[in-house]
């Protein structure tokens, strides 16, 4: 008699060094054949102790860290942290500074989404769109480079405003870029969105229901792809966003395709915001007048949320009247977004799993902090 094999399942490590885990995410997969029985994400390979660091530095010293939590949408994290501290010490930001913040943050959001589209198609095996996206992204980086002085890990916003004003060249550059990107979308549509293989790979895969979104606390394009119109820019307006007219694109089915389309349409909305902001750009100071040299807020706490490219970033600061924060909790979107992975990847194929993982748009150092 033939003996049946003892166990039909086996364990496969996906990551931390794997082309499709976007850095150092590790997923331990229990597999049966090509099917996934159980997926257990093991995070922490990018843990750098930001929150511990916050307790050992003063408020200003912690500011550069924000560009390195989520390096793809660094300016939103700058924004969230600055907002929280400004709320804590009761600082008013001049209008022009808010406009500049919005413009740069939206540019950064487009850059982040472009990188996602490219990297995601790389996961699906298409290499060329990746380079197209990077080519477009370089244009944004050029613009931001002129203003902020760095390409990636920006530390641009200050408590009470921004340190550098934008000039005409930047404004012209933004408009030219908007024109260019709109043209490029036609290419993307033909190359990707209408591609039959892409549609087959993404339609109906990795479906997340509205209820699942709520139970796992998903935000950003993950929730919007499932049809939840939750965007902090609209639902909890901050900065200069209430002054602009834009829509929140949402999906219907909550599958990968919807998440892809939501992100693509969001780029269009971001362009709209940038153009409106450039049109309405007020004159005035870019820095609040009475910014204290030494930031020492009274005891208390504050929670400020902004919308990053991946979802809601909440900055929770507890102060005990010291120059150093007592505790800073960074509520990062990808942490919650990734926690749904075991649930939606059950009984999928490896190829689908890679596609689902990519659609979450994880930035590992952001999850691990």
């Amino acid at each position, binding site marked *: 008699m033939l003996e049946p094999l003892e166990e039909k399942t086996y364990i496969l490590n996906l990551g931390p060094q794997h082309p499709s885990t976007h850095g150092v995410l590790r997923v331990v997969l229990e597999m049966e054949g090509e099917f996934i029985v159980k997926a257990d994400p093991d995070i922490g390979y990018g843990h750098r102790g930001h929150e511990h660091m916050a307790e050992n530095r003063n408020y200003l010293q912690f500011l550069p860290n924000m560009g390195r939590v989520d390096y793809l949408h660094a300016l939103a994290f700058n924004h969230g942290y600055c907002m929280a501290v400004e709320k804590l010490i009761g600082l008013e930001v001049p209008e022009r500074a808010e406009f500049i913040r919005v413009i740069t943050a939206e540019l950064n959001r487009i850059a982040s989404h472009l990188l996602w589209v490219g990297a995601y198609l790389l996961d699906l095996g298409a290499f060329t769109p990746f380079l197209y996206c990077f080519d477009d992204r370089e244009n944004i980086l050029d613009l931001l480079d002129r203003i902020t002085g760095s390409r990636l890990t920006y530390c641009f916003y200050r408590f009470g405003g921004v340190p550098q004003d934008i000039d005409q060249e930047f404004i012209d550059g933004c408009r030219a870029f908007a024109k260019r990107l709109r043209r490029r979308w036609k290419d993307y549509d033909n190359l990707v969105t209408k591609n039959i293989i892409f549609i087959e790979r993404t339609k109906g895969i990795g479906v997340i229901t509205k209820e699942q979104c709520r139970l796992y606390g998903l935000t950003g394009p993950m929730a919007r792809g499932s049809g939840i119109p939750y965007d902090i820019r609209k639902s909890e307006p901050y900065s200069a966003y209430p002054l602009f007219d834009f829509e929140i694109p949402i999906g219907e089915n909550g599958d990968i395709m919807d998440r892809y389309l939501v992100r693509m349409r969001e780029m269009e909305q971001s362009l709209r915001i940038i153009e409106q902001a450039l049109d309405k750009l007020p004159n005035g100071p870019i820095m609040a007048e009475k910014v204290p040299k030494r930031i020492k807020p009274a005891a208390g706490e504050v929670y400020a949320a902004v919308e990053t490219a991946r979802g809601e970033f909440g900055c929770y600061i507890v102060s005990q009247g010291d120059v150093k924060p007592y505790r800073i909790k960074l509520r990062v979107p990808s942490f919650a977004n990734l926690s749904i992975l075991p649930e939606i990847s059950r009984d999928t194929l490896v190829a*689908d799993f890679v596609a689902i993982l990519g659609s979450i748009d994880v930035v590992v150092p952001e999850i691990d902090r």
Partner: protein
Amino acid sequence: MTIFGSDLFRMIVGLIGVIALVSVNALFLIWMERKVAAHMQLRPGPMEVGWHGSIQTVADALKLLGKELITPAEVDRPVYLLAPIVIFLPVLVSFLVIPFAPNLIIRDMNVGVLLILAFAALTVLAILMAGWASNNKYSAFGAIRSVAQNVAYEIPLLITVMSVILMVGSFRLTDIVAAQERYWFILIQPLAFILYITCATAETNRAPFDLPEAESELVAGFHTEYSGMRFALFFLAEYTNMFIVSALATIFFLGGWRGPFLPGWAWFFIKVYAMIFLIMWFRWTFPRVRFDQLITFAWKILIPLAFANLLLTAFLMKIF
């Protein structure tokens, strides 16, 4: 004795010629692939090593030669060591029967098509050996996928080739070219040509059917554990296989060496490299299909279409 003497001569010259062709072709194809990819991606590609990076692949080959060969501890040693050699065997033999020009053929066998098809199956075996012996999950995946994929696409490939042979009535490759004197077969068998290209792309594990080495899923697929020269042999075999399937496409559908003005061999190579360019174009344009889609595509669509094409050919031959 004289026949044997001339045969021996033909054999040796042919052997040297084929080895030279295989090496130069692989070096050229890899360079071409990188340049084609680069220009499709708005970048220059290799530029600094030689004129437009023309000796880049020579540097790569030399480097791989000077690279350590690691044999992991857990592998099935004999099979692991044999796999890169086995994958190389069919590559050279297939060149025996390919007519590059009217008289430029090493041995015009009457079973030419069968010889190539039979030895092509050895590639699958080598991939299975490599993947399974590596004792690496990614490799094993790649190997199993590769076998499933190759067997699924071998049937439509066979049937498609049959509809060409049906019209010629011979397995001899020179006969097939000779039969295309008035018109190329692509004109009367367009469906067969499309089917053949699809299957050939899959048989050579090229994108969008490159699942055995799907980078984003399986790291490097069946050759994940192979380093240095062993890996180079897999690479060499892959690119030479690309040449062979393109050469067959040229012979079956594009009239072989036929063409005006230029000598036969020139036309042959122009057509072959045009076909290779087409396959490269696929690779740098399409995303990868999912594995179950790949297999069911072969069974649900390609095989019925190939059958229909064969019957149609048989029927039309009776009418005309």
